């Protein structure tokens, strides 16, 4: 009886571990996604600012 309980406990640990690994991977994917999107938005804004600056500077020169 005790062995059966131990068997089921470790089966539970096994299934939990397998799904935990995959869940941690999903969380890491989501975190990376957010970080990349934030960085993309930041760089796009930076490019827009630079282009505006260069455009204004170019117009001033003329």
């Amino acid at each position: 009886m005790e062995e059966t309980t131990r068997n089921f406990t470790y089966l539970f640990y096994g299934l939990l571990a397998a799904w935990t690994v995959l869940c941690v991977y999903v969380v890491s994917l989501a975190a990376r996604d957010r970080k990349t999107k934030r960085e993309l938005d930041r760089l796009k804004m930076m490019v827009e600012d630079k282009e505006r600056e260069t455009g204004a500077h170019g117009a001033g020169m003329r």
Partner: protein
Amino acid sequence: MRQKVMIGMAAVAAVLLARDLYVMLLKLPDEALQGAIYRIIFFHVPAAWTAFLCFFAAMIASILYLKGRNLKYDAFAAAVTEVGLAFGAANLITGMIWGRIIWGIWWTWDPRLTSMLVGWLIYAGYMMLRRAIEDPTERARLSAVLSVFAFADVPIIFFSIKWWRTQHPQPVVWGGGSMDPSMFNMLFTNWVPLLLLAGIFLMIRMRQEQNQRELDALRRYVHAF
């Protein structure tokens, strides 16, 4: 469109997993010698197959990159290797938990276990190598070469139980092991949702690789000002 495909795949995988868990926990009987713990095999083995399939796809993509120098193949190889590593980790951990009950130990330096761990570490090294090299072309070339050589470990993992004396059970597919047909079928039935999950992870990773390329291009553009 891609989002809808991913949601559809996730829904099918969830339904299949729920059904498989119901069958394996409530319908299938305990194994005569191992008891309930044998059910770990339904995740342990399909996780290994998924990892091997991912590493094989990475090798093909790496060869295609080396042949045509198309960075899309490099992105695919990186994405699929990472997915393979996740499933490889699930395989190693479930194997350790099974070993704790059946062998009484968490780990042994058995040829199968050792070759799997070495393979996992080589592919983890592949991911670290990619982070260490800044130049995309150089990164793609070196990591493609490593990926091709790393795959040499996969047949060693697979055949280790045939080539050397090992305490790992003989394979039930194409090997000396045997299993009741209902249990044997569950191995393949449970592989389908894991493959679907791997497909979803791969699609997400490919989108991230695309975003990363866009990010690199923008960085170069910003630095050019």
